[in-house]
């Protein structure tokens, strides 16, 4: 068996049935081995599209996503997707072809030091130096990507090793180093909970990584503890949970941010005190004692000290927390804040109001549908105004904030979940970053839906220019955008443009009822901003609102 054949064989043996990629010179033996193999390959039109499709596949299922690229520019084009997967702890395996071993270091055609490039954007990476190492490296790589805190792993395989005869040795994962819960820390945590008057659960992406939604909800439903979510955690707390305060942070809801600022015990569950969450860190939850639950010890105390740290898989640590029922006075107060600061959808005028459109879409699309966002104003409106029943139904580039994520991620999600409704919500800036993947949708007849919120601007940058750069709108005018419906039509994708509020209902019906791919191009007010907003350097209780700007 050649190295290339072994690579495909091992993927199949490990349950990888779909991969995303783009062929080229140094990975041709692997593509030859794919020919007729049981592993289905989805050809994207750019390697970044393959990387994000694999991320979308992984995030919508919890399974390993796999992408292929050739050496040199093929591999460099994967780097952004690897960085995105690193920031958001996504189990991803990238396999890249490399120039033959004898040519490495000679500046050969399409030779780049991919291993060197990978160091800052992977959990681990390998270059295979000997044919006899290939089987072990591939098996270890698949294990590493999915174990502990998940992340991207890259395997760079020189062409001669792909073509060489290689031995196969089964590789058995050793006992993973999973920290055992410190019983003293559990006792401290439970003591803090017993004394808490105003506790809040601060829920992060770790809940999805640990597949611990059930344990989270058991804890919340017994304690009635008010819960706030990071962007990545949306869907972890079920939408009908009575004390679900929604997203916190820079564009979080006012009730969520105020509750955290007032709380006396903050139970951080698989989150990392990201700067977009905390605002001014020294003023974030300043009255709170922190109980931090995370599988990654490096996250505990990295940004905010913890009084108790439960370093373990959340499935193990969450059930160790005592379920003291939250005091009624605090619950009444948080409920009052939720009512006082509820979202409003009564928008004057005839224009399409993006929050209303998204809220309507959320109510009318299947509850187990998948929403894949790009990055910018539309991303924050989705987080604010749509509801999710599981974190695998909301794919948004969190840590890296990568424009161009949404369309290829939706392709990956649709491949992974062919019977589910999958939609990408994008902006007129973001959609153009990987627009070539419309060809992938057409090639594979994927029923991906596309909603573009078009304000003819790089909206979030424009918003900051308005608020913090004295209205100097440097390079954010996109009024020369193409006609997106015509553009989609070139790829055989039907759709419609809407410009008025009274067209919203029919447009949503067209999206929801279409059997195939469909695009709605919604022209929105170019001056609409995302509110509330925690300004740079401010505390989370110093939010700007539309009326106070």
């Amino acid at each position, binding site marked *: 068996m050649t190295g290339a054949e072994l690579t495909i064989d091992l993927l199949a043996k490990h349950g990888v049935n779909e991969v995303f990629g783009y062929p080229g010179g140094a990975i041709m033996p692997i593509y030859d081995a794919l020919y007729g193999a049981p592993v289905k390959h989805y050809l994207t039109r750019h390697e970044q599209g393959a990387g994000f499709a694999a991320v979308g596949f992984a995030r919508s299922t919890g399974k390993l996503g796999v992408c292929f690229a050739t050496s040199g520019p093929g591999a460099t084009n994967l780097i952004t997707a690897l960085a995105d997967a690193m920031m958001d702890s996504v189990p991803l395996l990238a396999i890249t072809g490399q120039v033959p071993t004898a040519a490495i270091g000679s500046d050969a055609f399409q030779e780049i030091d991919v*291993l*060197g490039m990978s*160091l*800052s954007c992977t*959990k*681990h*990476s390998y*270059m295979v*130096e000997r044919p006899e190492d290939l089987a072990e490296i591939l098996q270890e790589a698949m294990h*590493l990507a999915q174990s502990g805190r998940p992340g991207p792993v890259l395997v760079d395989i020189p062409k001669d090793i792909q073509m060489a005869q290689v031995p196969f040795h089964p590789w058995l994962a050793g006992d993973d180093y999973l920290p055992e819960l410190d019983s003293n820390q559990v006792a401290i945590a439970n003591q803090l909970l017993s004394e808490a008057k105003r506790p809040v659960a601060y829920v992060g992406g770790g809940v999805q990584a640990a597949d611990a939604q059930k344990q989270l909800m058991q804890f919340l439903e017994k304690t009635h503890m008010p819960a706030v979510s990071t962007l990545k955690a949306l869907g972890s707390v079920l939408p009908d949970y009575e004390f679900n305060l929604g997203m916190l942070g820079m564009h979080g809801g006012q009730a969520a941010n105020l509750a955290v600022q007032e709380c006396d015990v903050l139970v951080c569950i698989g989150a990392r005190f990201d700067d977009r969450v905390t605002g001014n860190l020294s003023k974030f939850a300043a009255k709170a004692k922190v109980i931090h639950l995370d599988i*990654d*010890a*490096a996250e*505990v*105390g*990295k940004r905010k000290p913890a009084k108790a740290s439960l370093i373990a898989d959340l499935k193990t640590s969450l059930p160790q927390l005592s379920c003291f029922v939250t005091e009624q006075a605090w619950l009444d107060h948080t409920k009052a804040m939720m009512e006082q600061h509820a979202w409003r959808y009564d928008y004057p005028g005839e224009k399409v109001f993006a929050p209303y459109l998204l809220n309507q879409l959320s109510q009318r699309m299947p509850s187990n549908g998948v929403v894949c966002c790009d990055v910018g104003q539309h991303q924050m409106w989705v987080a604010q105004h749509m509801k999710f029943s599981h974190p695998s139904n909301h794919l948004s580039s969190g840590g890296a904030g990568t424009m161009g994520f949404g369309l290829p991620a939706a392709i990956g999600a649709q491949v992974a979940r062919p019977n589910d409704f999958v939609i990408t919500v994008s902006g007129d800036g973001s959609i153009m970053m990987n627009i070539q993947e419309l060809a992938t949708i057409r090639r594979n007849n994927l029923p991906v839906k596309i909603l573009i919120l078009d304000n003819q601007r790089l909206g979030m940058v424009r918003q900051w220019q308005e608020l913090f750069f004295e209205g100097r709108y440097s390079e954010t005018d996109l009024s020369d955008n193409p006609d997106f419906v015509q553009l989609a039509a070139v790829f055989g994708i039907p759709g419609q443009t809407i410009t008025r509020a009274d067209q919203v209902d029919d447009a949503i019906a067209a999206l929801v009822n279409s059997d195939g791919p469909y695009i709605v191009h919604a022209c929105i007010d170019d001056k609409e901003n995302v509110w509330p907003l925690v300004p740079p350097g401010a505390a989370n209780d110093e939010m700007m609102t539309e009326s106070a700007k």
Partner: protein
Amino acid sequence: MKHSLTVALKNQSVAVERFLRVVRHRGFDLTHFQLNMDDGHYHVAMTVDSDKPIYLLTTQLNKLVDVKHVTLQNNLQQQAV
């Protein structure tokens, strides 16, 4: 504040590079570095300097797949006092 650490690494060709990248990126200046190899492992003795608490580095190093163990030897400034 200066800290002295010893680190054992797998003798993978890229292990030292990966490890040093983390030291730099996490905000620690390298003031001394010595590398030996035996028993199939790299053994690093190094001194780093930073205003940041040393656990912010050791916890990151401990996550690296190539790192077998990290030992904090002492706090050199405290020792000098």
